[in-house]
């Protein structure tokens, strides 16, 4: 009899627990849905901004042409793959992986600066980004760097003379003794 009372109590307790869990699960599902929605909205908004910036800068760097960012593979933007397509003037639209080395770099740079337009960073390090670019492209790249430099600090590591010309100050790093770097300041302005 006593056992019966105990079990009845236990049953009541368990049932309550189960109900609690059920409502907790519902809450969690709701939360996940909300998170997904917010993330999706933010992602789409940012992607839109990046798209605009990317195309604008791409056309500037390539002097015309067209470029696109496309979501493929899934209807949910949070799960989809991001495909980058580029069409330099007079060529056919193709995936960025099929471009030449310099074009690739230029496209990627356009994308990065496109991101900068949406999410400006106060400080940016460019480590030998300009290496695969030809003179004309370097010149355009530098012009853009100049434009962006009003809002962003750039620390540029380069071997290119044109890029050096655009810099406000220049540091030379040498290694006179093995293993020990020496910095020489070459200030302009």
């Amino acid at each position, binding site marked *: 009899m006593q056992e019966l009372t105990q079990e009845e109590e236990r049953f009541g307790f368990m049932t309550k627990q189960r109900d609690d869990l059920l409502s907790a699960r519902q809450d969690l599902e709701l939360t996940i849905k909300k*998170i997904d929605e917010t993330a999706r909205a933010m992602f789409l908004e940012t992607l839109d901004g990046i798209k605009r910036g990317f195309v604008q800068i791409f056309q500037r760097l390539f002097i015309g042409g067209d470029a696109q960012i496309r979501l493929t593979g899934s209807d949910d933007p949070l799960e989809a793959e991001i495909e980058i397509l580029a069409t330099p003037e007079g060529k056919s639209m193709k995936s960025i992986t099929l471009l030449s080395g310099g074009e690739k770099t230029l496209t990627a740079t356009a994308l990065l600066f496109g991101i900068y337009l949406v999410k400006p960073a106060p400080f940016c390090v460019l480590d030998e980004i300009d290496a695969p670019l030809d003179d004309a492209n370097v010149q355009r790249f530098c012009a853009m760097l100049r434009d962006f430099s009003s809002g962003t600090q750039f620390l540029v590591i380069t071997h290119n003379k044109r890029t050096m010309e655009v810099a406000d100050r220049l540091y030379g790093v040498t*290694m006179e003794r093995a293993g*020990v770097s020496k910095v020489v300041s070459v200030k302009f302005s």
Partner: protein
Amino acid sequence: MYLSRVELFGFKSFPQKLSLEIGAGITAIVGPNGCGKTNVVDAIRWCLGEQSTKTLRSEKMEDVIFVGTKDEPPLSLAEVSLIFSNEDGQLPVEYREVSVTRRLFRSGESEYLLNNRACRLKDIVDLFLNTGLGADTYSMIEPKMIEMILSEDPDLRRNLFEEAAGVAKYRQQKKAAQRRLEAATEDLLRLQDIVAEVEKRLRSLKRQAGKARVYERFSQELRQLDLAASALERDRLRAEERRLATAIAELQQRRAVAAAAAERQEHELSGSRQALEQNESAIAEIQGGLAALAEDIQQQENRLAVIRERRTGLEGAMAGREAEVKQLLASIGGLEDQSKLLQDELRQASAAAQAQAEELKGAEARAAEADSALTLAKLALSEARKELLESIKRESEGKETLAVLENRRGSLLRDLSRTQAEEAALRADTADRNGQLAALEEKLDAETRALRVLAEERTRLREKAGELQNSLLLANDRIAALTADLSQLEKERELLTGLQQRYEGYQPGVQHVLAARDRIPGGVRPLAELVRCQPGFEDAVETALGDRLQWLVVRDRTAAAAAAALLTGARAGKATVIPRDAAAAPEHDALPQLPGVKGWAEQFVQCEQDDRGLVRMLLAGTVVVERGGDLAAVAAALPGRRLVGLDGSVLEPSGAITAGELPQGQLGLLERGERIERLAGEIDARRAEHGRQAGEIARLKQALAEAASRGGEAEREHERHQRLLHDTEKALAGARAALERNQASLAALETQAGSLRAELAGTESQLRPVQDSYQELSESNRDEDQVLSQRDGELAVQSAERDRMAEAVGRLRLALSQAQGAADRLRQELGGLDARKNETLERIQALRAQDETAYQAIGQLQQESESLALSLEDRTGQRRTIIGQRDELQRQSQASLAALKSAESAMHQTRLDNEAVQSALATAQIDLGSVRNEFENIAQRIRAEYELDLSRSWGRSTSPPCRS
């Protein structure tokens, strides 16, 4: 907010402290490959909290500390500081400059500092939150990131975008929520299992509860019955128990009686036994004593023999020892003599050693004294030298200061003179430039004027060119009109000439003769071709000549006949042929002056002189009058004359009048010839005009070209002058700027010179005391140095003296140790002798002791042998007595044995009885035990089942007490 400075110390390839100003805008780092450019970037990244060693291009975190090279030792810590300017307050702290430092020690300890105060990495991450700055954000772009964007792996690309969108945070939250959801689901499943289980059990328990209630009722009933039955049983068991207890008491009594009897018998028995045993043991003892006595006797006899033997041995040994003692005593005497000699020697040696030791002590004391003196002197000297060194250092410092100051003065003087030279040069330059400026201004004026003139000239030339152009256009128009006219005229002439040559308008007969004109000697020509009339008289002459114009003129009559022959029979029509020589008419008189009368018609006809007669004849009496003139009046005045009007009307003397005109467009023969000639004249005139106009055009063109070239030249000249003007202006502006610069430089130079002079004065005033003190110091140093050298010499002498003393001490020590060695040797020898003597004495003592022992032993042996003999006799007596005793005891033993046997049989009987009682008692006790057990069992069961005490009495009639 911007990064204003990066400071490195000991990071990777930067062992020395390094500060890089970054500042706003673009900062470029250049240099050959592998020089450590990217290390600067790594430093920034590291300081912002980069944890991945792979990103930092090292194997373990400690590798970022400078590892050392063959010239430089490795460092024990690396430190990087980033200094941010926070003027705009973008960082959520109050400082206007924020420094972030990361430090790593080789021991692996690491710390972060925010404005030089220790903090956690999280604080730094929080600080830069939402600024887009951080070790892993997209603010560091390297070729790797380009690769990432271009990567085939879409996740990497996604990361970049999600980072930009700030979605990563949500992704983590979502993951956490999903994990929690999974856990909740799992818990739920488990819980549902448990709930189902509990439910099942609850059902079965409910069923069981019903059964339990029925069971309880029955068990209550059962209990009543059970308790009643138990009470009955209890009463039965209690009676049994009482019965058994009485039986046991009886049996115990019986057993006690039997036991007392048995005990008594036992006691008796044991007394008999004891007596018997005593006898037996006494006998055994006596027997043992007998055996021992026999043995004893034997032993004592043996012992006696041994004692005798030993005594003989001892006496022999004593004799031997006596001889040895004598010999030893003799050797002791020898040893004592030797000892005495050695002791003398030792005393001498000791005395010598003593003396030497004292000497040594003295020498040592002296040496120590000299030593301490020397040390003191050295100390003093080194002190002095140190001071001198200090002083020299000061001197050299002074010298350096002096040199620096002199240098400074020299450089100041140089600077000053250079500055003055520069100033002078600048002044000269300024004057020069002023001159240049004036010249340039003049030049500018001149240029401006020249330019104005040139501009006017240019305008004029342009106007002229315009005019020329106009003229040229007009001339072109004219020439075009002329050309058109000309071609019109030529066409007409061609037509007319064609008509004339084909003799159109002549009668067929005439045409026939003319076609064959070659056959007529002297040729043939129609009259119309031979005459011409004055312009304006064509109609009149044509009318006056009339059909005669168709007449063919030949040379003479023969020719006329030939012509006529041609016609004859030709049926080609008629023609009139007239020989030129046939006609001869007188010249006309002068006509009276009449109004409207022009003159004789012949007068208005032009022809060859040869043909004049013919013409006169043909036109004889024909007068030309004005157009529309009063023919009648003229006719009246000139009777018999034929009157012809200028309009071609004719009044014959007969009064016949011919009037009218040819139809429109038709020309008379004469008119045609005239027309052709006129046309030729016009054409020529037009051609000449055309040529003239062409010449004019060429001229115009040339003029235009000339004007254009001059205009171009003027334009170029103008431009050149403009350029010149511009250059001059520029030069002027340059000169002015240079002048201003010069003035600024001059002012700066003057200030500089002033400050240089002030500094020079300061330097010189500094220089003097320094020089003085330096001189003083250097002299004193020289003196001091001399003194010190002298003291050095003294010290050397002292040192030599001390060395000498030390040497003497050494020598003394050596001698002393030798003397001591000799004394020691002697002492040793003496000791050896003493020892030998002692040994000998000891030996003698020992020998004597042995003798003593031997004497004693002999005495003892004597005594012993005597006592042995006595005891031997005694023992023999004892033996006899004991044998008697033994026999007596043996008899007693036999009697005791018989008594014992009868007692034993009685005892056996008693024991049997006793055993029977015992067994009955045991049975009763077992029964009692089992009854009690049974009772106890029932009681226990009742207690267990109903919690009642059975021992409390209640009968079958009484109801059991209720369970509480």
